[in-house]
């Protein structure tokens, strides 16, 4: 009796009243913070990028799109260095993302199986991620030092080959940065893959085994397709993180030799705080941010189609 009555008298009036204000009250704290720390700074940043902005000047001259135009006018330092450092960052992303995804998947596949010392190895691979970028950077700078690095010492010991100038040869200077980054962050992606793997129903593998599928076939036709959504997530987050390369190249090579490993974020920081060109740095920040937005959207659409099609199967 009560069960039929209570909703009948209570629910409609109750929900209608609540519908007016309460959800907004729940949203208010987040909305306030969102406006304060996201919307307002973006607006202010845009304002700065359109003015010759210096707090110490009484007038902030409006310059329109001058700082944006600089980025597309050949001959300006901004044009030269922005695109060069953007290419550096892109190169880093193209090299590091496949490595970070493949290594994470490989490690997860190994450590998902009930091998001896599984928890220990999971911890070992995850552990470097808790280091700060400065610790990690100094470590890899030392490892690859031209003269006193462990890598060159090991080469000498094993092959007697002369030392390689890793840190001061263009191109080679990427090796410590990429290797260091993979060592540093692969554990996080591995953990994501491990979690996703434990969610795959065991019955699928049993059925496949009954049909005579080999381990490789099981991976190819069950594990990999079932992991597509997490792969989408891992690829996007890793690519975004790689595009934000900053600390690793700053500490390991300081962007050198001759700016060949300088990341776009490092250049924006240099323009803003070393050269005191805040407006120019803000403009670069917007252009770079916009690129990331487009890239993420494109990647998302491409891979979301993949996820859908596998789920339909």
């Amino acid at each position, binding site marked *: 009796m009560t069960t039929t009555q209570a909703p009948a008298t209570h629910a409609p009036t109750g929900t209608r009243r609540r519908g007016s204000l309460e959800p907004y009250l729940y949203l208010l704290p987040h909305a306030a913070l969102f406006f304060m720390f996201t919307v307002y700074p973006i607006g202010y940043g845009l304002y700065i990028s359109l003015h010759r902005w210096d707090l*110490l000047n009484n007038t902030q001259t409006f310059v329109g799109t001058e700082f944006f135009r600089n980025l597309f006018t050949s001959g*300006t330092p901004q044009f030269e260095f922005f695109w060069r450092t953007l290419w550096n960052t892109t190169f880093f992303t193209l090299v590091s993302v496949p490595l970070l995804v493949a290594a994470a998947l490989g490690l997860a596949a190994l450590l998902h199986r009930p091998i001896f010392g599984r928890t220990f190895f999971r911890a070992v691979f995850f552990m470097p991620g808790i280091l700060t970028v400065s610790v990690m950077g100094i470590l890899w*700078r030392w490892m690859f030092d*031209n*003269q006193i690095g462990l890598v060159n010492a090991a080469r000498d010991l094993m092959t007697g080959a002369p030392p390689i100038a890793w840190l001061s040869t263009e191109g080679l200077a990427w090796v410590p940065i990429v290797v260091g980054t993979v060592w540093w962050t692969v554990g996080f992606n591995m953990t994501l893959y491990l979690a996703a793997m434990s969610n795959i129903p065991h019955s699928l593998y049993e059925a496949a085994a009954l049909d005579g599928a080999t381990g490789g076939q099981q991976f190819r036709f069950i594990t990999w397709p079932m992991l597509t959504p997490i792969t989408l997530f891992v690829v996007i987050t890793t690519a975004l993180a790689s595009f934000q390369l900053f600390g690793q190249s700053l500490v390991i090579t300081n962007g050198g*030799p001759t700016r060949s490993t300088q990341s776009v974020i490092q250049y924006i920081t240099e323009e803003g*705080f070393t050269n*005191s060109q805040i407006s120019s740095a803000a403009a670069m920040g917007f252009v770079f941010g916009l690129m990331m937005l487009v890239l993420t959207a494109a990647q998302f659409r491409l891979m979301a189609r993949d996820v859908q099609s596998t789920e339909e199967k």
Partner: protein
Amino acid sequence: MNRLARSLSLALLLAGTATAQKVSLTYLHGFTGPDRPVMEALIKKFNDTHPNIEVRGQAQPWGTTWQQLPALVASGRAPDVVVINEDQITGFIARGALTPLTAPEMKTAGLDKNKFFGPLFKTADYKGQSYGVPISSVAYVMFYNKDLMKKVGLDPTKPPRTRAEFLRAAQLCTVDKSGKNATQAGFDPKNLDTWGVSLYNNWVGSRAAYAAILQNGGALTDRNQNAAFNSPQAISAVQFLVDLVQKYGVARPNATEEAELAAFSQGKVCMFPSGQWYLDRFESQKMNFGVTFMPRIGGSVRDAAWGGSSHLTLPRQPASYSAAKRRAALEFMAWMAQPEQNLAWTATGSLPTQAAVAGNPRFETAAISGIFDRLNNVYATSGFPWVGQVMGPFDAAWEAAYLGKKPVAKALNDGVAEANKQIEQARKNFR
């Protein structure tokens, strides 16, 4: 309860009477490391001996101060006294963030520029006016290994002073694995056992090039404050450094600061030019080393080495700012710069700022006193508002020249071209 109430009211009363005459100053500085307790002890000492002034020190990282100071000045809430370093100070002066210290003010406060090492006070000068009082100083020096020098037949009590002496010492020190030195026939520069001098590619390494350029009569900027480190004097000075690697083989190519530091610590290098801040490290290793001023490797025009310094400054304040505060701030600055305080400050590893301190008996047996005869020749990268725009390309030019990626003249010309493009844009900020 009763006692608490009584002491509380007493405290309030005291505070009330005190604020009636007491001037309270806020003092912002970036000494956040092991130098922080030394600075705080000095502040306490000042407060204890100056009943009418209360200085409240606040330590925060330098970078934070550089970012906040413009906003604080613009909003009229700047601290009363701020410490600013040599690479930032001219930028803040040119943007109007600081106020000049007038001659009468300096006189009243008892500040005599002539007592300080000359270039040090000039670091904070701009367009004929002084803006800062130097209280801390570091410099590029040359460490040398006495044992190694003796071994190759050099007199360790007479470190080189001229280019010829320097080159000879470096050549004698550079010995290959078969025992032949760089002056002998059959010397194999590919298999070095010990070598003459440490050069390397980062910003610390590029300060050797800076010293060499000044020694040869060159400069970083011209009188219009445009970059000018590609003058014939500069090219010739830097060429000599690069020749040490490429022609004479007495310095290693592709070296990093860490590798050279380790090599010097292990007794493989005779001469290690670097920041005086490594003193502690070599002292704690019980090495038999000496410290001397940078020899005149770039040329014979003058002695010169790079130095950094920290200056007490008075930021721009709103029109309503009290004159008593400014007087008190000047008194504090003058007191802090006095020999007694400066001597206490040298415990942090800073160099003396004035001859009166350098002559203190405490330094008689100290290794660092090896550079004291030429402290008047330490030059900061200062005097132009765009230090970042000049030093970035300069460091890059040194890197390219040292690593052999570009010929010296091209490296320096490219650096100057880049710096001047950046300066042209930065100029629009100053009107």
